[in-house]
């Protein structure tokens, strides 16, 4: 603070409290609705104070949306994306920063370009790939005439197929296919003094040893930051799981939640829908609140 101004401080408090109250108001109203019975949730004017039915609604939402199984799926996907990103990004950045090889610049740009186009804008063909992950390789074989060649020689027609719909690999892999993490690591690796590499080499450590014993311990902070960001990102995905899981019993919590939207006539059960919405919000919220420091760091670092 630069100067003492009690009045202005009071105004600051008022403004911040008011601003944040507005921001968090929808969540409060959702919570209040989740504590009412059906009539209470639909009451006009709207209720502003909680009622006694919170646990009943949570229990109803849990069984109706089969949230136990959906939570397991979402958790596996979120952890899978998180682990995949943290690991693959680290290996790739290590190769890009610490090796002297010719293709380095090309590989760097190949990875870099993926930052530009989010999954949403190439959704239709990505879906086609998920329906058969080996489709690109099949097409390459077909176009180069290798399929025909092999067929005439051996009589066997090559038909590569790996269906990823309704599978964990299908849910996870396309979400891993961006460069966010690679950049975070690259920026960090560039700050590591080269004396460290020289010292390691002098001590007879090879690259993998250097990665394991020097870089890995040094990048703990970055790993935590990236992991928090990726967990939240993966848990909150909607469009991709919606497309890839055609069977309802394979879907994630977010897709299941959207199925609860009241449609048709009759008194909508907003109390149960809001209870489900709050339950589904909880894991990423817990991650952000508990790991706030890493989270803010990751947020700022990935967007460079």
């Amino acid at each position, binding site marked *: *603070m630069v100067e003492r101004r009690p009045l202005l401080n009071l105004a600051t408090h008022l403004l911040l409290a008011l601003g944040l109250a507005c921001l968090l108001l929808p969540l409060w109203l959702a919570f209040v609705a989740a504590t009412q019975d059906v009539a209470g949730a639909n009451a*006009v004017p709207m209720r502003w104070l909680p009622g006694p039915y919170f646990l009943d609604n949570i229990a109803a939402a849990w069984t109706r949306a089969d949230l136990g199984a959906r939570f397991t799926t979402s958790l596996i996907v979120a952890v899978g994306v998180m682990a995949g990103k943290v690991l693959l990004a680290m290996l790739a950045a290590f190769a890009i920063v610490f090796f002297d090889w010719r293709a380095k610049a090309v590989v760097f740009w190949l990875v870099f370009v993926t930052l530009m186009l989010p999954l949403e804008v190439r959704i239709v063909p990505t879906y086609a790939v998920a329906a058969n992950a080996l489709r690109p390789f099949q097409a390459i074989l077909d176009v180069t005439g290798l399929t025909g060649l092999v067929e005439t020689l051996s009589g066997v027609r090559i038909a590569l197929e790996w269906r990823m719909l309704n599978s964990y690999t299908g849910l996870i892999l396309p979400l891993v296919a961006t460069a966010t993490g690679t950049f975070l690591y690259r920026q960090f690796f560039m700050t590591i003094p080269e004396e460290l590499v020289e010292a390691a080499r002098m001590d007879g450590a090879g690259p993998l040893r250097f990665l394991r014993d020097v870089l890995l311990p040094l990048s703990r902070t970055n790993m935590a930051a990236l992991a928090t960001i990726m967990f939240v990102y993966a848990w909150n995905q909607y469009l991709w799981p919606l497309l890839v899981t055609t069977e309802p019993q394979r879907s994630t919590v977010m897709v299941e939640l959207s199925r609860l939207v009241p449609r048709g006539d009759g008194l909508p059960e907003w109390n149960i829908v809001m209870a489900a919405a709050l339950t589904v919000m909880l894991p990423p919220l817990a991650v*952000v609140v508990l790991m706030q420091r890493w989270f803010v760091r990751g947020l700022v670092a990935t967007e460079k």
Partner: protein
Amino acid sequence: MSNTRRALFRSTWLPWALVLPQLLIIFVFFYWPTGEALYWAFTLEQPWGGGNAWVGWQNFVSVFSSAGYWHSVRISILYAVATTVLAIGVALLLALFVDREVKGSRGYRLAAIWPYAIAAPAIGIVFRFVFDPRSGVFAFLNQASPGMWDPTLNGNHAMTMLVLAGAWQLVSYNFVFLLAGLQSVPRALVEASAMDGAGPLRRMWDLQVPLLAPTLFFLAIINMTDSFTHSFALVDVMTSGGPARSTDLMVYKIYSDGFKGLDYSGAAAQSIVLMLLVVGMTFLQFRFVERKLHYK
């Protein structure tokens, strides 16, 4: 890549082995689909099988000559600009005052970050309830006079609701960057202008906000890009593009034309347009932001 002076490891195969998993994944799930979108955009699937026939720009011509598409472009731009302005405005206000570091500003800061953790479908469903014409906050208006507030029938109401939800989602992200930007403004500058007699509001407007310009520009681009690409979940959960296509944003239209209408070529052509838009904005960001951000 100007790190040639670095001490580096040498190996012919190891770096390839290290980048191979990542390259393989981005080839299959990034480069191939992007290429395929291009291929589909210039071809048309033949009825009764027989593969795709080359049709040149025809898919683009039919997309661009459809009134529905231009409507979608217009409302997407409206949506993007409105959410961006609202989200940056609110975040800037919060950040400027949290930066005054009154007692308890840590608590305010934490609360302002919360919304980032909340998924689009979840907040979409909450906003849908809050603005529901029969049970939401404005339900009493409809009791007084039916139809005063009804996002299920009135397109403007639906768009307002969508913009509010979209902006709500972006506020936290902007707040984090603006606060970081404010805290990197040298304290000496702020103190010097205070000694020259500039009051707190004057300092905010004439010193802190101008110094934040690069951050604001960066956030504007990021928010616009995000509004163009990540609005799908909100639209799908809150309005499904309705009423009467009044919230049929570009990314939602690609989905509904492609997966509901099974018009892959049309959807691919629209995807290409959206890709160009996003890539263009990313270039803008690199060109202007990278250069100016170094005032620290």
